[in-house]
């Protein structure tokens, strides 16, 4: 199999895994087996995967409150994630993180984040490490449209440009920050222009289209790796669920989501494209879907069977050294 074929298999595997993961989390949360504040990523898969397919082991990403998709795309262990959401000892963060703080630095995932915009300074740091230690790595900050108005984000734009850091700021404009539309909250309405106002180029792409995202991400990543500094990648997309589990999303026009699901689903688009282009076969796709479904099932069973963290863990891990 060629590298490209392999890439496509992987991309489809990851996008499917994210979708099935989120659907299952939705159900488990409804059943009451997953506690806490949950923000689902379903609908935006092409963004996380399109970008992360351009990244390797030495690269870092920082994520948001809506972090499951980025974590999976960057290579976090799905079973460990499922354990985490079930608040079990075998969780990716031993049950201390939950949905909003999942991280695995060993695969370059610096964490979901409960503070909007907070990942942006952090990737400046990861990029500084890459630059100082000459690892060749880059650092990517995923954020939402709402985050693009946050102080931390904007200050980081400038710092990354001044320090010429290998950073890619990825804005996933899914139309809303909670109940507030991005068309209202982003002054001027044009984040490419905003990026340019800080002296970095912006690339935009259709976030429903894996191939478009991947191509644009490739440019931004190459630029960063080349030592040419940061850039912004602006992706339009949508989320299928409410802002968090429990949000009725009445601020969206009636039928808005359904129409997008039908016409612009990133997984369907991917499938049509690879089938039409003869890049993957229907069997291959089905095989991956089955494999993923199985993995998600197993992960839930495994999570349910796992023990809760021992109460003694309450006071461990506050410090590395005491």
């Amino acid at each position: 199999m060629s590298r490209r074929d392999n890439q496509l298999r992987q991309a489809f595997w990851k996008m499917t895994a994210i979708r099935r993961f989120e659907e299952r989390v939705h159900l488990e949360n409804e059943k009451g087996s997953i506690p806490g504040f949950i923000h689902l990523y379903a609908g935006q898969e092409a963004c996380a995967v399109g970008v992360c397919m351009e990244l390797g082991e030495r690269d870092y990403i920082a994520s948001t409150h809506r972090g499951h998709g980025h974590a999976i795309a960057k290579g976090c262990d799905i079973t460990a994630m499922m354990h985490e959401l079930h608040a079990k000892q075998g969780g990716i963060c031993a049950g201390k993180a939950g949905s909003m703080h999942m991280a695995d630095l060993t695969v370059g995932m610096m964490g979901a984040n409960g503070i909007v915009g907070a990942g942006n300074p952090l990737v400046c740091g990861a990029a500084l490490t890459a630059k100082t230690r000459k690892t060749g790595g880059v650092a990517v900050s995923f954020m939402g449209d709402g985050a693009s108005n946050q102080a931390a984000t904007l200050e980081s734009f400038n710092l990354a440009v001044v320090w010429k850091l290998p950073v890619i700021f990825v804005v996933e404009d899914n139309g809303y920050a909670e109940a507030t539309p991005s068309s209202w909250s982003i002054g001027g309405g044009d984040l490419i222009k905003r990026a340019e106002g800080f002296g970095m180029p912006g690339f935009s792409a259709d976030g429903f289209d894996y191939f478009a995202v991947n191509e644009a991400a490739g440019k931004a990543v190459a630029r960063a790796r080349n030592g040419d500094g940061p850039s912004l990648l602006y992706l339009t997309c949508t989320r299928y669920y409410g802002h968090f589990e429990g949000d009725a999303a009445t601020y969206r026009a009636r039928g808005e989501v359904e129409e997008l699901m039908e016409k612009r689903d990133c997984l369907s688009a991917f499938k049509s494209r690879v089938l039409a282009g003869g890049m993957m076969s229907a069997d291959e796709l089905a095989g991956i879907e089955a494999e993923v479904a199985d993995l998600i099932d197993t992960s839930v069973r495994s999570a349910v069977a796992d023990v809760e963290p021992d109460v003694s863990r309450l006071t461990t891990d506050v410090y590395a050294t005491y």
Partner: protein
Amino acid sequence: MARKTYREAINQALDQEMARDDRVILIGEDIAGGTGASGAQDAWGGVMGVTKGLIGKYGPERVLDTPISELALVGAGAGAAATGLRPVVELMFNDFLGVCLDQLMNQAAKFRYMFGGRVRAPLVVRTQYGAGLRAAAQHSQTLYSIFAHIPGLKVAVPSNPYDAKGLLMSAIRDDDPVIFMEHKAMYDDIGEVPDEAYTVPFGEGRVLQEGKDVTVIAIGRMLQTAEKAIQAARADGIRCSLVDPRTISPLDEGLILEMAAETGRVVIVDEANPRCGVAADIASLICEQAFGDLQAPVVKVTAPHTPVPFAPVLEDAYLPSAERIAAAIKQVRAY
């Protein structure tokens, strides 16, 4: 008297103050929700639905949705307060004070002092605190000790719907910046709340019950847990007083000292982290000012010095429990 939730009590305080004084405005993220959207307007009324319905009554000029920009909007509140409005800013979670502290600590809190007493900054910042909803480390903190540390801020921590309404009305009428702490796990708590406007004064604590053996002082939602512990202690024949300071800055030092002196045995309950927290603050007050009356060490029951964990089993252990409080009561009684 009507029964209302903590949420409804707060909503009514806002409503009545907005009706009374057109300088009162609300600012916050999705406090209406749907601004500029094609779907429903007032779609949220805040993440917990506390401000629901107010935009309908007072319009978008007085109920302002915002971009996600706490620093700018808390600062805008401070600036508006100094120039003639009486803004009530919602900081969705107190954990976000990390992104807007400057405008509170170095601006609003210090205006009056720095400017030689020649300005007023009637700003209210409403915010949610507290653990218990499995919201993990960045959405479960109890940070009022930081606010109380800062001269120029006042800090109210209502423990029930009645106080929530009365303290919020006081806060809005107060000419100083006030941080108003709402516990996120209390919004559905129900209590007697008069329909008419009333204020609960700042700096006046309340004695919920009197007992001769031990004085329990608890903050915010911990009053409820303390009540359970006191109940349990009663089975062992121990009678406790229970004190709710209601505002931690100003603090009703007189009442606290008096109640401490009465029993000579004190337990302080607070769900914040212990180091430099308000429990330590109150304990040190008692030890300095009521030392001669003390019969036993002043014992603090607080969260441990850890972030708030996600796993329910850990979070439950994090929060002061009725058992731990009851044990502390027994301990000081037996000392």
